[in-house]
């Protein structure tokens, strides 16, 4: 397994002559192998250094891993979409059924309530 590390130098000071107080970090470059930039020792103006990743550190490889993401997405997408659509349709049907049942039962209840006083009123002289 090869890791391609890209050296990044950030200047934190500015003078009339140029930049200074360089801090550097290493990025995992997955696009292309650039062996000339993998050596941190080649930093010409490094004054203050910050090591974020080393050649053996697994952190950048884990963080910047586009390949697994691309591999996973096409496999899982069709099934996940189908399951999601079926579940969505089931939930929708269940919700509509419940709403219809609730509405019909309430209408029935209200019908009993409205007829009762009228019949009671009619019964009184």
């Amino acid at each position, binding site marked *: 397994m090869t890791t391609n590390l890209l050296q990044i130098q950030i200047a934190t000071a500015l*003078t009339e002559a140029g930049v200074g107080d360089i*801090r550097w970090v290493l*990025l995992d470059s997955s696009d292309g192998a650039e062996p000339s930039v993998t050596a941190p020792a080649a930093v010409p103006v490094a004054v203050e250094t910050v090591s*974020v990743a080393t050649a053996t550190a697994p952190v950048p490889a884990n963080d910047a891993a586009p390949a697994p993401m691309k591999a996973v997405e096409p496999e899982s997408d069709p099934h996940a979409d189908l399951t999601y659509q079926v579940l969505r349709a089931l939930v929708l049907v269940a919700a509509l059924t419940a709403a219809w049942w609730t509405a019909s039962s309430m209408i029935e209840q209200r019908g009993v309530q409205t007829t009762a006083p009228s019949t009671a009123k009619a019964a009184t002289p």
Partner: protein
Amino acid sequence: MTTEIVTTSLQWDAETLLLGVRVHARFFNPAEVDARASFVERYLPVFAKACPRRLGDEGGRTQYTAGELQAQPDAVLEHGNGLICLTHRHTDRLMVEPERWSGQLRADLMLQSVAISMAVAGALQRPAAALLRLGNALLLFSPGPQVLECLATNIGPALRYWNAAKVVNASQLASFCEPKLRALPGISVSTPPSSWGGVAAGNWT
């Protein structure tokens, strides 16, 4: 024969520490500075003698890619042994008050400038400084180790978070990292401006 290297430090009016980034500010009168002739005089009014050379043409903006980080800086200038990454479009109308500038400075803009300079530095393999030009202030960002580490190690997660195909841009990385930086212990403290150097309204460069 010896070559004399002039390392005159620049005159900044104020500085503060925001989210692990030391920010130097130079305030100026926009009416006076905007009327200057050259690009450097207008957009980098902190320089007295130096004249950084702009890379690329005036109007066009070049895309720089470092690994999975991509940025399109407003201007890249060659300055001595390194580069200056200047962000000025869409921000040169933003004004800050010299008395409250550290509270008015947007952290996402600051982190975006740093991320842009990271992309440029990685693409060109040269040290780069991040500068942001506001309407009446020029800011130099000096990111601390935690900030650089946060930005560098979160490119992959930001890529996945934004569901980006191959690269994440500086703006996306900045907005992804801002809450992470705020959550870091001891980094969210913002020091009040300590050295104002007698800057007062109307007394700018």
